[in-house]
């Protein structure tokens, strides 16, 4: 995920701004990290360069 995406992505629940917490970065992308809602505090993972902005109840792995 490129940082420029921060301009448009928001918390799926309350549409408020997100804060980017990078964990691992490449030249121009965040590969691992977190997006934290500045309003509700909900955390959204960035894994293998892909932000997962599903609502929290849809994000978690289904029970096997």
């Amino acid at each position: 995920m490129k940082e420029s995406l921060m301009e448009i992505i928001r918390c799926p629940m309350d549409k408020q701004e997100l804060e980017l917490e990078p964990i691992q970065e490449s030249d121009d992308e965040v590969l691992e990290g977190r997006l934290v809602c500045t309003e509700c505090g909900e955390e959204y993972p960035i894994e293998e360069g892909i932000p997962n902005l599903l609502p929290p109840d849809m994000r978690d792995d289904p029970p096997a």
Partner: protein
Amino acid sequence: MSAREEFDAWAADGRDRGMEERHWHTAKHVLGRMPVESGERILDLGTGSGYAARALADAADARACGLDGSPEMVRNARSYAEDPRVEFLVGDFGALPFADSSFDHAFSMEAFYYAASPHETLKDLRRVLRSGATFSCAVNYYEENTASHEWQDSIEIPMTRWSMDEYRAAFDEAGFHVAAQDTIPDREIEIPPSDEFPTEGFESREAMVERYRTLGTLLTVGVVP
């Protein structure tokens, strides 16, 4: 089975690429009609393999963002795209993770009717589009396309089957101006000679001709006032 499990399984099976190949026959005409200017931001709703996002970036020098609810679809889509103007993210049609007026246009192929609350999704789409933005909504599954009705039997996710009139009315109700509506024929799919029917999908050659060459893909274009 949840939508996510269903479509993750499709992606793992390589069905994303199969859909890309078939859907391209009509999707390219939909994309070709979009009045995209260089540098504009486009949303591809239910991006699958991400071909539309790639094509928009490439042909129109746009910045395309593909959203899909299936992490496996998005992983595949990211792996096929090298273009820095193309981005992908995981998200659901029911909770678009975007700021107001984020996009200059939106596109969706064979995906919109999976939305759990299609009217809500249309309203939310309107929100994330700027004034003057277009939404090109393309579907093969719709009321007038009777051959498509049985598709619901082979998938557990509920699918919304609107008629052409219902698409226009829903766009209107969500606050879009309906700018155009059309069925785009698939002139490329190969249709076997009559003696090979019935096939798995069609009783007769006529039925297959109707499904593809006559009905094809329903396109509804809305514009944000």
